[in-house]
């Protein structure tokens, strides 16, 4: 009995740690979608790129992890800013599907470029917390997952403060609610949208650099976009707190499915949840309900 309870606690902790990563990725995607109405399918590939660059800086150039973290985050942020300012901005005003296609195109190009630049092999790197565990109330927790949870929490809080307390954040909110009205009120919508992309890029980079030591540095990491989508839908499309909640829930569901359900369910559980939520309750847990506009 006690063993079962221990297992449950262990699985729960793992689930939250994995979920924290999903939450970070989901946050980035929702940020960009809220501001620009582009569903960024290239998000996972920005994450892959940051993992590979971090690997190169740590293993090849010998830089310490804490120095690599801000460098890569800012670099990917600048890249994301450029992607919006040069490419994605051009399709404003076209149907939503063009945005999907364009970001899929970007995703392919980034993935191809990473694969060409670094080769197809997967690799790994160490963080200061790798391989160490601590016990909290009898449950063994790897220090890395503790750090991941803390980082995710920190980013969520910082984003919340940013959007509610700063001028820039409020302007971003305004632009995401009604671009034309915000523009008429003197908000520089174009520049803000690019800044939101940069912000999304930074979260993707941080998620990537913490995800890579948990799994492997590999181009297949982009698949996390799909799980993040499940998290976003579950939490309610377009809601930032919903994205965080959805991410953690998807992480938990996935881990529980791996332990308590038959073989194979772990891989499809997030997608089954996604389908079920969209059919039964399309607005998710924290999404806003709205009528249909004709």
């Amino acid at each position: 009995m006690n063993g079962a309870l221990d297992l449950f606690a262990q699985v729960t902790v793992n689930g939250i740690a994995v979920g924290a990563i999903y939450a970070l990725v989901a946050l980035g995607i929702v940020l960009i979608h809220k501001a620009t109405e582009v569903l960024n399918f290239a998000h996972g590939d920005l994450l892959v790129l940051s993992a590979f660059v971090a690997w190169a800086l740590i293993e090849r150039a010998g830089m310490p992890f804490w120095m690599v973290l801000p460098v890569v985050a800012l670099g990917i942020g600048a890249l994301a800013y450029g992607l919006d300012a040069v490419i994605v901005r051009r399709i404003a005003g076209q149907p939503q599907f063009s945005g999907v296609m364009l970001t899929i195109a970007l995703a392919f190009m980034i993935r191809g470029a990473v694969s060409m630049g670094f080769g197809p092999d997967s690799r790994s790197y160490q963080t200061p917390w790798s391989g160490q565990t601590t016990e909290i109330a009898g449950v063994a927790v790897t220090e890395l997952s503790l750090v991941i949870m803390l980082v995710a929490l920190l980013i969520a809080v910082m984003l919340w403060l940013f959007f509610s307390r700063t001028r820039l954040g409020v302007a971003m909110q305004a632009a995401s609610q009604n671009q034309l009205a915000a523009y008429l009120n003197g908000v520089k919508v174009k520049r803000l949208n690019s800044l939101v992309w940069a912000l999304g890029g930074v979260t993707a980079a941080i998620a990537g650099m913490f995800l890579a030591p948990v799994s492997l540095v590999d181009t297949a990491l982009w698949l996390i976009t799909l799980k993040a989508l499940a998290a976003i839908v579950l939490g309610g499309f377009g809601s930032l707190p919903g994205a965080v909640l959805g991410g953690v829930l998807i992480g938990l569901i996935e881990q529980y499915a791996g332990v308590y359900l038959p073989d194979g369910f772990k891989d499809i559980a997030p997608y089954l949840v996604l389908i079920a939520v969209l059919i039964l309750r399309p607005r998710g847990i924290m999404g806003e309900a709205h009528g249909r506009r004709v």
Partner: protein
Amino acid sequence: MRFDYHTRYAQGFALFRHRGDWLWYGLLLVALLAVPVVASTYLVGELGYVLILCVASLGLMTLSGFTGQVSLGHASFVAIGAYAHAWLMAHGVPFLVSMPLAGLIAAAVGLVVGIPAIRVSGLYLAMVTLAFSIVIEQVIGMWRSVTGGFTGMLVETPRLLGFSLGSPRVFYYVCLATVVLVLLALANLMRSGVGRAFTGVRDSEAAAYALGIEVNRVKIGAFGLSAGITGLAGALMAHHIGYLTPDAFTLLLSLDMVLMVVIGGIGSLRGAILGAILISLLPNAVSFLKSLLPAAVQRQTGLEIFVAGLVLGLFVLFEPTGLNGRWLKIRALLENFPLYRRDTFRRQKTYMKSERNR
């Protein structure tokens, strides 16, 4: 540009809009029929594959291009068609019966997948279909008794009236016949009431509803039809591959199909065909390109996917109407040669319109 001045109602429903079209399409068909006689076996095999992808692309075009429903998971219907066909053949069902049956099975699954389309649209539908295809891929891997799981499943050689259809040259004709039949069926469907209902739902659901079109039924029906056609492509694909494993039908195939439809030009049968041809020839073009580059570049992976992304990106940015739109522009240029105006096809500037509340 040729304008259609109709003088009789029947002209509005004609299969070929212009008198010369019969001749040109006839010549094209004759040329395609003659290909196996002159071309090498390898080339014929490749062309057969292009034709299979044309069928798949037409299937997705029915849904995304004509009815406006996005699907990022059409590879699952290819997979269902392929496995159903292989299973039926293994259980003694003759080729000519098994192929339509495979299409029907895929269509039945498509009807079920279409049900969410009533409640969700746009991005959400894209995500449902995406999730569905991932689930199907896993189910195929797990359902060992029928599909052989991840180890795979051998496809029997197709036979018709005691003759083997297995050789590339003969199989090419099977593929060609399927493409022609599907094209004719779709061209006829699109000028019937059902086809008009499809486009009506695509252009404005509310208006279509107000005109008495049963929007929900049309959407689900389009899903079923599209899945059925894609299933036919899957049945042909089974013979082309010869040995079925789940990783032949991943997300990448779904995305490839979407690429065909978008690059070809949303909402046109010609576009579906052109897109399928371009996307299926892209890997060959890239490997040719690689042979020209230095050896260090040749060994690298990832160039294919990079080029695919580049092509897609350029089309979305600079030619959203796809190859079909480009073809129409070139034809207009040739027809009015000295008097062609660039602004004929200029897009108007639009404000960002929110699709959030749809």
